[in-house]
């Protein structure tokens, strides 16, 4: 991996996650290895991630589109997750529920896009 991962003693390493909103804004946030992508995005107040059920996989409001190259590298979604995505307003082939993705060191630099709305 080309970029350095911030590591401090006794704390989980941090990785950088990049995002784009549907109206073209972009930004980045830090995520701790081991936490969910949703939890990291919520702590960083990333706009457009609601996560109404707090990661219990019943609300679908933590939906994101993962950049294609990164999407292929993630473990595949469970059927329940894909079902929930399909009931939502903006399902796409690279859709994921961010609460179901556990951050790993390999995700440093991951790019995601926030859908136009969650409801």
């Amino acid at each position, binding site marked *: 991996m080309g970029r350095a991962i911030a590591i401090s003693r006794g704390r989980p390493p941090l990785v950088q996650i990049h995002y784009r909103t549907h109206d073209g804004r972009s930004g980045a946030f830090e995520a701790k290895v081991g936490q969910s992508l949703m939890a990291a995005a919520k702590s960083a107040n990333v706009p457009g991630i609601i996560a*109404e*059920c*707090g*990661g*219990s*996989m*019943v*609300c679908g409001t933590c939906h994101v589109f993962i950049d294609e190259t990164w999407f292929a590298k993630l473990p595949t979604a469970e059927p*329940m997750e894909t*079902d*929930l995505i399909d*009931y*939502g*307003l903006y399902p796409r082939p690279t859709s994921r529920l961010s609460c179901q993705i556990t951050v790993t060191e390999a995700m440093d630099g991951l790019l995601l896009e926030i859908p136009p709305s969650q*409801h």
Partner: protein
Amino acid sequence: MSTTTATLEKTLGIPPHVKPEQVFEFDIYADPRITDDVQGSYAAALRGAPDIFWTPANGGHWMVQRGDLITEIVKDYEIFSAREMQIPRVPDPPYMIPLSVDPPANLPYRAALMPKFSPREVAKLEPHMREIATKLIDEVVAKGECDFIREISSRFPVSIFMELMGLPLEKLREFRIIADNYFNARSNEDLARLGGQIMGIFSDLMEIRAREPRDDLVTSLMNTEVDGRALTRDEILAMCLVLFLGGMDTVTNVSGFTFQRLAEEPAVQARMAADPTLIPRAVEEGIRLHGVICTPRVVVQDTDKHGVSFRTGDMVLNILSQVGRDNRANDHADAFDIDRENKVHLTFSTGPHLCLGHILARAEIRILTEEWFKRIPSFRAKPGARHGFRIGTVHALEALPLEWDVSA
């Protein structure tokens, strides 16, 4: 055990694992401090109580009034189970799907129900909801007055729900009475009898739909598979029970409380009438201020958390309405402020049992409010009228007499 604890135990029946400073007396069914402004008076009554406290009333149980603690509890199903929800406890509590089912067993049921409650399905219902709202409001406009609960908010969501489920509308009044009785019931016998009546209604419906399938929820559940098998009749009935109870009363109550408040807020009314695009935000503010559910959980594993000793068999009641009213979460929490950026509340709960119908409920209240303001841009509470309310695990307003000027 200290002497104070021993004395408390003797006089009030406080169990030994409850510390004296954790005791705060509150009767969830009949506390004298509660008024027609249910959520406001609740917040005022509990201002001096700890975030987690024990009330000796109704068999003795914990109450939790802070958002982050409630979030933790409703997500921590291995300690706080949803399998029992009656306070005081009853020997054979009602079983509802998915409400009484802890993860991960709840997930296939949620998945079976989700399609009908998705944003897309709700959007499809919108024209029909608008039609029902328009019809109900048109019936009262010219009178210059109405009982908002009886004539509008109790009829509107019920009609939509019946339609969704496939229930015949002629039976609307009868269903509503059974639901009211169910929420007022305390004894095991009454709960069982009323639960039985509700199941009977849906059981009849399943027989009809087996012969004449339609595009409704009951037909769809009868054709849905979970884990590669069909849902059983009992499972479908247990799902119907929670849908019936959830869909009948809650929307009525939240919109009733919201309109009771709006009637006291002429400046807010004027803004909503002048700019209808503000209505969705106003509705969310009404939802924040008027939580109507207190969700019970039963402790299934001894645990010490936040200075509290939870013991197996303790009931824990999460007072969802307190979250929206918490000044630590919302500035001037009691103020009706359309413009507030972040409307923090748990009116629909969170975690695995997050309300399945929240998208539908929000759409219903928004549509009703939009159609109301088109026809009745300014209204007030009838002076001197008592509204009456019911509290417990569901808060309800009994009547809301409103009046407005009718132009000749």
